């Protein structure tokens, strides 16, 4: 008879502990923190470039851009006018974790910011498991992907609070069905806020900006 010792511990308890510390730190400064997730190439960096351009006059923003290799995304965000930008090069890891965010935040002056974006590594699987201390996850999908993606990656769509359907200017060049993707996503998560955008034409971006402004106002209230 072997002895069974009850442990009852979360595997990612150390990550969750650090994420909790980040959340307290951001909450104390009333910073809205969004964790942007998607497949590679859906347009996370483009959406952030546009958002920096549109909001930098009125919203103080910090951005953390994660990539497996290169600092290309962080450099794009700086060129777009981002003043507080930190790259995280994971060197192979398929997701960001709370320890990386703690380190990046230590290198950013976040005393007077309203909004923090974390651009996660392009991957719809692994980043779902790692809490980064964000207020919410925002998942992007583009019209050049399959409209069944929410069904294929349910965990990510379930854990996200908003879904941005990007590249709507390319509708018609693929079989992507806007109604179908909405239906699929809402079956997984009935409370998703859904935006339809094109970072190339600017279509739909105003409602995305309005939503961000409302989040910031709610945090300050």
């Amino acid at each position, binding site marked *: 008879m*072997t*002895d069974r010792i009850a*442990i009852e*511990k979360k*595997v990612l308890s150390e*990550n969750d502990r650090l994420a909790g510390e980040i959340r307290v730190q951001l909450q104390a400064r009333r910073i809205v923190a969004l964790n942007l997730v998607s497949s590679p190439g859906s347009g996370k960096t483009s959406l952030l470039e546009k958002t920096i351009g549109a909001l930098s006059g009125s919203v103080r923003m910090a951005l953390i851009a994660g990539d497996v290799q290169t600092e290309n995304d962080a450099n794009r965000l700086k060129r777009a006018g981002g003043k507080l930008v930190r790259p995280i090069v994971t060197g192979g890891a*398929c997701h960001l974790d709370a320890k990386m965010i703690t380190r990046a935040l230590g290198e950013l002056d976040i005393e007077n910011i309203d909004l923090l974006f974390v651009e996660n590594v392009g991957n719809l699987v692994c980043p779902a498991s790692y809490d980064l201390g964000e207020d919410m996850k925002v998942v992007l999908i583009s019209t050049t992907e399959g409209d069944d993606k929410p069904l294929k990656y349910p*965990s990510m769509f379930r854990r996200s609070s908003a879904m941005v359907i990007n590249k709507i200017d390319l509708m018609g060049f693929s079989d992507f069905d806007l109604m179908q993707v909405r239906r699929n996503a809402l079956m997984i998560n*009935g409370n998703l806020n859904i935006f339809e955008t094109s970072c190339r034409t600017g279509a739909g971006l105003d409602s995305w900006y309005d939503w961000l402004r409302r989040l910031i106002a709610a945090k300050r209230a």
Partner: protein
Amino acid sequence: MHELSIASSIVETVTAEMLSRGLTSIGKVGLRIGALTNVDPEALRFGYETMVVDTPLAGSTLEIESLPVKAICRKCGLSFEAHDFIFICPNCESGDNEVTQGQELEIAFLEAD
């Protein structure tokens, strides 16, 4: 392939538990894994077994209990299993619900050798 990172977190936790309990070897690590965690048990086993070679955990195996996803409807209060991750209440068809099971990624027990 975050199973490797997860395997590494398991090794860290189990090593600490062994130290604090004065165990020198271990036979089995019992895990509880919810279906919403995207963790592939086979990849996790492979990562774990590769990682523990030449450590005090060498030779130990993972016993994985997989938990299906369950939710409770906020509208009518029904508890239901979300088959294929479809979170629509089978009673009132509302999509407003809360996950009650399926997000677990826990070490449940250790079995000494």
